[in-house]
């Protein structure tokens, strides 16, 4: 139990260390280039010393959680590019909201942005339904068209109203400067709404997302639920815009959820993980952006989460690319080893186990391989401790100066007999129980012998009533033979 916990903890710590090191190094390098007192700054940030830092950090964490939670649904429903389109489509709404309220009034901006996001999504669905346009062109059209409109309106406002409009620029890339506690209220509201919605409607959302027709048939209001989710998504995007910016908010929806999808397949856990990952990347990105003043917060947060994604993709101990590559390699090595050992057994069997050792050339003949290849295979066996090699000098008149004699060690012998046993039992099983022809069973057994465990072999023995001969008339070593070890007498005599 403790071992298991420690194992998991160790993996987590390793991941964390892997993730932190480059971040810290990178931050250190950037800051030393700028000749700033970065330790001091880092200390100030991580102790949350002053009010503005508290606000910024809280904002980043809230955004990370919001987007991570929503992203879980967005990614699992394959709506990632919809999220991107929606985030671009809210831009004109922000400008219109500003125009109407004549100030950076949060509520007006929010209403305008949500409204224009909905108009954008509605246009996509109209184009898709009533014209021959495909989804991707409709999305591209709405994305770029609304974005152009938003850029135009924002420029117009900036030129017409002078300096009071400086804030709207920050909606493009996001900034942490001037974030006040009031800006956090929509984020908190959004989080509350998301959590409330997910807790109350968990089953319904899950069902309508993964199997809409079944959900409809049991009487769930699927369209209403989708509408609900759209409102939440729009609200989440709009409330994050100020920190992350229009262009990159979709990344924050997609990347933490995609990372969580690599770690688990259960929806509830996926949501939990992606929320945590979002918060983590949010605060780290914020920290880096705080450390280096010129770095905009949005892109840094996105880079952090991309980095985390890559780390998980490669080093995740269960399904990561590197661990599974190592596992595959190891398994391949083991199978090659076992095949050589099996051939060794067969060579010994040909000579009716008359001697304990055999020449390397006989093995090469048996495996139908060149001497050099066999040499390498034997080297592997010796390295693993399965065999030993003696060089025997032949008589002077022989043309060959020497001959390599191989003998198996007890552990090598055990594996060899075990493989032979698996192989022959499986052949017998196929001929007897599955009515295969005896000359068709070899290839199948060649594959399965490495995989079936001791339990399955016992089961096979039970079904086949402890057989001694395989379909080709050869002896099947029993568990007793294996236990007794190196060339046990009955095996020799019976043959």
């Amino acid at each position, binding site marked *: 139990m403790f071992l298991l916990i420690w194992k998991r903890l160790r993996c987590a710590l390793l991941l964390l260390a892997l993730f932190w090191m480059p971040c810290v190094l990178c931050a250190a390098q950037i800051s030393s280039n700028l000749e700033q007192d970065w330790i001091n700054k880092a200390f100030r940030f991580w102790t949350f010393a002053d009010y503005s830092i508290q606000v910024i950090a809280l904002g980043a964490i809230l955004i990370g959680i919001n987007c991570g939670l929503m992203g879980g649904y967005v990614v699992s429903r394959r709506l990632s590019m*919809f999220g991107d389109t929606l985030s671009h489509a809210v831009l004109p709404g922000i400008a219109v909201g500003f125009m109407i309220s004549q100030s950076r009034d949060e509520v007006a901006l929010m209403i305008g942005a949500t409204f224009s996001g909905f108009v954008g999504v509605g246009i996509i669905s109209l184009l898709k339904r009533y014209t021959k346009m495909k*989804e*991707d062109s409709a999305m591209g*059209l709405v994305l*770029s068209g609304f974005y152009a409109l938003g850029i135009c309106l924002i420029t117009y406002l900036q030129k017409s109203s002078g300096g009071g409009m400086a804030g709207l620029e920050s909606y493009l890339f996001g900034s942490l400067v001037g974030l006040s506690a009031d800006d956090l209220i929509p984020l908190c509201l959004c989080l509350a709404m998301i959590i409330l919605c997910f807790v109350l409607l968990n089953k319904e959302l899950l069902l309508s997302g993964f199997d809409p027709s079944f959900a409809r048939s049991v009487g769930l209001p699927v369209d209403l639920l989708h509408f609900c989710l759209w409102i939440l998504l729009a609200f989440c995007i709009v409330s994050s815009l100020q920190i992350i910016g229009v262009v990159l908010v979709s990344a924050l929806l997609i990347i933490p959820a995609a990372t969580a999808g690599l770690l688990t397949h259960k929806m509830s856990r996926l949501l939990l993980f992606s929320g945590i990952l979002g918060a983590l990347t949010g605060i780290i990105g914020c920290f880096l952006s705080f450390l280096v003043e010129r*770095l905009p917060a*949005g*892109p840094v947060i996105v*880079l952090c989460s991309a980095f985390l994604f890559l780390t998980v993709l490669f080093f995740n101990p269960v399904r990561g690319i590197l661990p599974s590559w190592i596992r595959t390699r190891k398994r391949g090595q083991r199978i090659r080893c076992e095949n050589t050992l099996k051939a060794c057994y067969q060579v010994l069997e040909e000579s009716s186990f008359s001697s304990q050792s055999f020449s390397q050339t006989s093995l090469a003949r048996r495996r139908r391989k060149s001497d050099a290849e066999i040499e390498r295979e034997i080297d592997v066996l010796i390295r693993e401790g399965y065999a030993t090699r003696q060089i025997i000098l032949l008589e002077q008149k022989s043309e060959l100066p020497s001959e390599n004699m191989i003998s198996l060690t007890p552990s090598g012998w055990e594996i060899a007999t075990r493989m032979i046993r698996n192989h022959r039992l499986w052949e017998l099983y196929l001929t007897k129980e599955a009515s295969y022809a005896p000359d068709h069973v070899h290839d199948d057994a060649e594959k399965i012998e490495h995989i079936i465990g001791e339990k399955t072999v016992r089961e096979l023995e039970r079904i086949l009533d402890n057989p001694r001969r395989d379909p080709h008339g050869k002896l099947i070593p029993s568990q007793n033979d294996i236990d007794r070890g190196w060339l046990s007498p009955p095996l020799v005599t019976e043959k």
Partner: protein
Amino acid sequence: MFNLVESLIDAWSTHEQVIWNLQIVFMGIMVSLSCGLVGCFVVVRRMALLGDAVSHGILPGIVIAYLLTGSLSVGPVWIGACIAGLGCGACIEWLRTKTPLREDAAMGLTFTSFFALGIVLLSLEVGQVHLDPACILYGEIGLTPLAPELVLWGVPCGNQALWNMGLVCLATMISTVVFYRFLLVTSFDTSLARSLGMPVASIQYGLMLLLALVVVASFESVGVILVLAMMILPPVSSSFLFRRLPNILLSCLPLSILYSLGGLHLAYWMNFPISASMAITGVVIFLPCCLFGPNGGIFTNTKSLSIQEGSKGIPIN
């Protein structure tokens, strides 16, 4: 407030203004023509969002090439952008096939990360650079006339930016004409193309390279995101007017002239950025095409309407 005559005439009232604006209009025509030509194939292949992804993904390449060479000349920047664009495409493909991610998530993940990398690189070096983030987002076509004079063998030949874009536009037109048959067949029927012995994958990569070239050449004028508008709007609008691909390709020229002139005047009238007003002109032209176009417009095509009337609800896949 609105004076039609004034807003139309004002831009062409003096000699200097005529020269200045003509350059902008030419630039706009060439940008939207080359984008539109590539866009026709991109749209029929249903790669519109991939086009968007690549146009974002080239940013780090542009920035790195710029930081290395210190200039925004098309050559090195194009090489950098092509490497980044193809890298972005390869990344998407790899994530899609080798990991449990779906295509949309792979796409969204890759291009946003590339774009973020570009922005971060840009803002770290922003002190020495005149490439500012806003320019990447909506371009500075209005500053085309300020580009340095191109001097060939001691003879001044006019605006360098125009020449660059002109070359790219020419290359796009030539490759569209030369490879027309290949592009056509591979776009609509991959298996037929394979059985005819066409190198389908290389044509795909060639199209991506062309896309990268066009995006690089035009991003300074119209920005990364509006390139998408310039790519999608012409083929989509004219697909409501014409049925055949050659007609759609040919209609890119009049459309791009309309976009360019309309964008310029809209920008003069409302004080908008020219590139964004070009996109808005495009949308304004798209609307009547979509509503009343003879080939599948909403009001002219009642057949498809009645077929699909049964489905209703909110637009989710």
